[in-house]
């Protein structure tokens, strides 16, 4: 068990190293920082002084290690637009994003998982077909189209809800609905297929053959086993809480992390982009780690496998 966790922790750390490396490589490949900041007309001696001051004349591997050091200390640079530390800009946007993604996460789970389980237990029924059709629609209709359709119906035609901004709780309804519908469809489809796979297993047949009531077969044999793949996708959804609303925030002019990211990319505000990238990586890695730990508890086989891996 301890070994399993140790391996997972090692992998998580490795992923962070990879993300930081990715950021470093992309940052260095995209051009000479001295030229980018001082402009092409800067005199050579100023450029040289700048390079010296920021360690850009050091060997590349030295800069790479330096970069790690800076990130470990939380020095993620300043926004080119207003000179404030990038990390501050990003952190102050997080509550707005969570105000959308947390309720949406709740609705996704509350709608998607029961729908998927029900559809699997009543395979071929009208409700199963309806769930599957909605699930396919949820996959093929991109979130920006869904968002615009909701705006068209509920804001433009019916005039019930505002189409954008962040002035009251009513402004959050359409963005949350957009996020929830798409996510619930994905989750329903996933839960259904996980459940169907489990229901086809011999141990389910054994359980019902030895006379266990169907309700109990489902609750104590099928559901715990179907939970394992479902937890994976839930973990991914938790990991995207911070930056999973990029498109939706843009459509609804919601001042969250996603909107900040889009604006920063358009302005090539590198410090902010890099900061969000690292933050997302941290959240993803943490939630994957939690999922791995949950696996350890949900599935004793994985613990055994982990010990050999």
């Amino acid at each position, binding site marked *: 068990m301890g070994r399993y966790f140790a391996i997972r922790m090692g*992998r998580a750390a*490795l*992923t962070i190293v*990879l*993300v930081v490396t*990715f*950021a470093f490589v*992309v*940052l260095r*490949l*995209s051009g000479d920082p001295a030229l980018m900041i001082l402009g092409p007309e800067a005199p050579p001696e100023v450029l040289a002084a700048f390079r010296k001051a920021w360690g850009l004349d050091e060997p590349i591997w030295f800069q790479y290690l330096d970069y790690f050091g800076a990130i470990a200390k939380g020095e993620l640079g300043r926004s080119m637009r207003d000179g404030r530390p990038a990390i501050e800009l990003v952190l102050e946007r997080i509550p707005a994003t969570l105000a959308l993604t947390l309720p949406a996460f709740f609705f996704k789970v509350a709608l998607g998982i029961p729908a998927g389980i029900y559809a699997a237990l009543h395979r071929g029924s009208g409700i199963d077909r309806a769930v599957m059709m909605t699930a*396919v629609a949820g*996959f*093929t*209709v*991109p*979130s*920006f*189209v869904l968002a*615009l*359709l909701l*705006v*068209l119906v509920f804001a*433009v035609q019916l005039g019930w809800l505002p189409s954008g901004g962040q002035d009251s709780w009513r402004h959050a309804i359409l963005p949350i609905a957009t996020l929830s519908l798409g996510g619930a469809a994905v989750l329903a489809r996933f839960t259904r297929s996980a459940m169907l796979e489990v229901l086809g297993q011999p141990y389910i047949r054994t359980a019902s053959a030895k006379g266990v009531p169907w309700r109990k077969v489902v609750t104590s044999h099928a559901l715990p086993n179907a939970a394992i793949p479902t937890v994976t996708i839930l973990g991914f959804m938790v*990991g*995207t809480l911070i*930056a*999973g609303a*990029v*498109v939706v925030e*843009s*459509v609804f002019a919601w001042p969250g992390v996603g909107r900040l*990211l*889009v604006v*920063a*990319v*358009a302005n*090539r*505000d*590198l410090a902010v*982009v*890099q900061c*969000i*990238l690292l933050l*997302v*990586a941290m959240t*993803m*890695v943490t939630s*994957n780690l939690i999922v791995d730990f949950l696996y350890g508890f949900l599935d004793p086989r994985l613990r055994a496998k982990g010990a050999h891996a």
Partner: protein
Amino acid sequence: MTDATLKDTTTRRVSLPAIPVSVALAIGWIVAMLVIAAFAEKIAPYGYTQLDLRNRLSAPGNVAHWLGTDELGRDVLSRLLVSIRISLLIAFGATAISAIVGTTLGFLAAHFRGVVEQLVLMLTDFQASMPFLIMALAVLAFFGNSLPLLIGLMGLFGWERYARIARGLAISANAQGYAAAVRQLGATPARIYLRHILPNIASTLIVSTTLVFPEVILMESGLSFLGLGVQPPMTSLGNMVGYGREYLTRAPWIMLAPATTIVVTTLAVSVIGDWLRDRLDPTLQ
């Protein structure tokens, strides 16, 4: 090989007459899209940047502009046709790149094992655990934007799935008689993998392609919608929806035509993919 050929002919005999209506419709739609992509500028009634300032925001259904016009009087139908071409070009280019990159890495992992395999597996884990949109946005922020870069970037999408599948299948193929036989005959590794193993695992890889392809379309249209993908004056489906958003109240048709095209196209590819998977994927039978 005889076994495989025999199996092929039997499945073909059974499966050919039984194409469901939905799959036939989906194939028809995709063929139509391909024809449109190939001849977009010839079919289009107007140039896609041609202005008609006297007919700005005119509603669909009139003879001059079947699907109406946008805020500059540009013909929505003509723009739609050209957008389909650009979006499909990106989607096909990107899908081809990711299939080639992923399969190659999967084969390398299966061939060399050891450190190479661990490295490839680490990269697939990394790719699978990071939201692609965020990484794509980061690259675009650092490098600016151009069509080749966009295609290359989208080509990084989904490669990890091919890599995993190709690795797994190649490892099991290597353990089978036919691979050992050609190896004994002195074939080079490249020949074994490309001429013998690849054809045998192609069906599973093709099924993955149908899963990745619609996601590439959605990803590209999402980026273009945000104004960070295909740049004007060039146009793509997502790009059109993005611009149409500003005229949502007065001229919803600008946005509805490309949005419908995106949805129907992704749906069609998914329908074909599901059907192919049931037909071809031996792991499901």
